[in-house]
């Protein structure tokens, strides 16, 4: 369906661009999530107000329009011209970071108040309590919702094709325009997005198990796809639920 030249010059680099946009946007979104999410738990109303405003604005605007705004409005407003990928990463990272901040805020709020009290009794500063007690305990709770968000973000990266970033969706559109043969290329794209999403989920599952181990918790029962293929005894050996009760 596609020529070898097209495959090596557009499609493979497109896959790589998708990976890059996902990684950069996810890193930005993660930083924004923790920053805004933590600020939203501040005792100072002005800090809560400012961070809450950020959250509302980016939750309430379209990521696609935000991308157009970064790519085409910012140059005329501020005189800054982003390269297209930067505009795409900014729009995605800031938008998904707003959603992520809600995950961080919620997980922090779910840490037992008694933990805060124990931290006060040991005379930790507020910052130390946050860094050493509250965030580490909230982290395992954040991972499953972060996984959902990460997959939303991965699929959202297809939007960058609309601002001339040559990701794999952009390559697919090119091929359709050249050959008019849509079915195979879009099917292939769907499969690739699915495989990426699946790999991310597996990675996040590992992260979750590691985080739970660091809390001294035995990992939850495996419920994922493929889990039925493993024998019971193999699962027990992996989770190591022998003595510690």
């Amino acid at each position, binding site marked *: 369906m596609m020529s070898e030249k097209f495959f090596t010059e557009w499609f493979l680099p497109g896959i790589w661009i998708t990976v890059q946009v996902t990684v950069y946007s996810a890193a930005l979104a993660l930083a924004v999530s923790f920053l805004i999410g933590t600020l939203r738990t501040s005792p100072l109303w002005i800090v809560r107000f400012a961070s809450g405003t950020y959250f509302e604005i980016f939750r309430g605007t379209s990521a696609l329009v935000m991308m157009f705004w970064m790519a085409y409005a910012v140059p005329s407003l501020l005189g800054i011209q982003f390269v297209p990928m930067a505009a795409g990463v900014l729009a995605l990272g800031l938008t998904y970071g707003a959603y992520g901040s809600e995950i961080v805020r919620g997980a922090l709020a779910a840490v037992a108040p*008694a933990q805060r009290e*124990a931290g*006060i009794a040991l*005379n930790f500063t507020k910052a*130390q309590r946050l860094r050493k007690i509250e965030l580490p305990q909230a982290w395992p709770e954040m991972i499953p919702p972060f996984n959902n968000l990460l997959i939303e973000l991965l699929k959202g990266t297809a939007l960058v094709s609309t601002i001339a970033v040559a990701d794999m969706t952009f390559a697919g559109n090119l091929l359709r325009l050249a050959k008019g043969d849509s079915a195979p290329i879009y099917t292939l794209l769907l499969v690739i997005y699915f495989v990426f999403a699946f790999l991310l989920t597996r990675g996040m599952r590992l992260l979750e198990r590691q985080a739970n181990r660091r809390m001294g*918790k035995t990992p939850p029962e495996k419920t994922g796809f493929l889990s039925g293929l493993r024998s019971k005894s193999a699962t027990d050996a992996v989770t190591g639920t022998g003595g510690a*009760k």
Partner: protein
Amino acid sequence: MSADQNLTKDQSNPAVDGKELIRFDKVTKRFGSNVVLDELDFSVNSGKHVTLIGPSGSGKTTILRLLMTLLKPEEGTIRVGGKYLTHEERNGKLVKAGEKHIREVRKNIGMVFQQFNLFPNMSALRNITEAPVSVLGLPKDEAEERARELLDMVGLGDKTDAYPTQLSGGQQQRVAIARALAMRPQVLLLDEVTSALDPELVAGVLDVLRDIAHTTDITMLCVTHEMGFARDISDQVLMFDSGRVIESGTAEKMFNEPEHERTREFLSAVL
């Protein structure tokens, strides 16, 4: 179980000379319209072991939580070692204290909670070393050495790497005691520390506390329903009712010949 020598010898307490260490002046604490403490006055001399008894809801735990600054009083002042706890003097006037002042006074106070409240994200050892390292600035290896001594003292020398979820309630509470002691407080607040434990685990925790009471000069302020334990360790027993101290005296006097009718009723109900 041997006493930790460090606790007695190195204790750099300026106030182990029997002087007044804690003073409540007309402290009032309300939750909504419910007055839990009503212009409470009382004081504790340093080195003393004081037990607060009384029916639930009489404000005993509230006193400990006020001292730990987990609650703020509506009225009145609390002093620890002569310094105001939630107030500070500025231009001759008493104003609400800032975080820095509170932390300075609070460093003399440690607390053990009913529900242990160990940090589940840290091993037993790190539960004990984290605050000495990051709050007191102790070198890590020194803090760890001391944490091991403390774990030995509470009989858990082999549990350094265990996480709280891997320990029984009694073991968690003993780690929590070690954690509080690692900060070398002048005052140790014990808030119903055996109430959440299975009956067979209570004795182990109380033995540790008896040991600390008899071999150190830490001031102890204790809310408990374990009257035998209270009788063993207390220099002074305060009977609370409706946010006021209605009777106080030595353990012997309070348990053997209480004067107040309410005290007699309460003790006959719990003993």
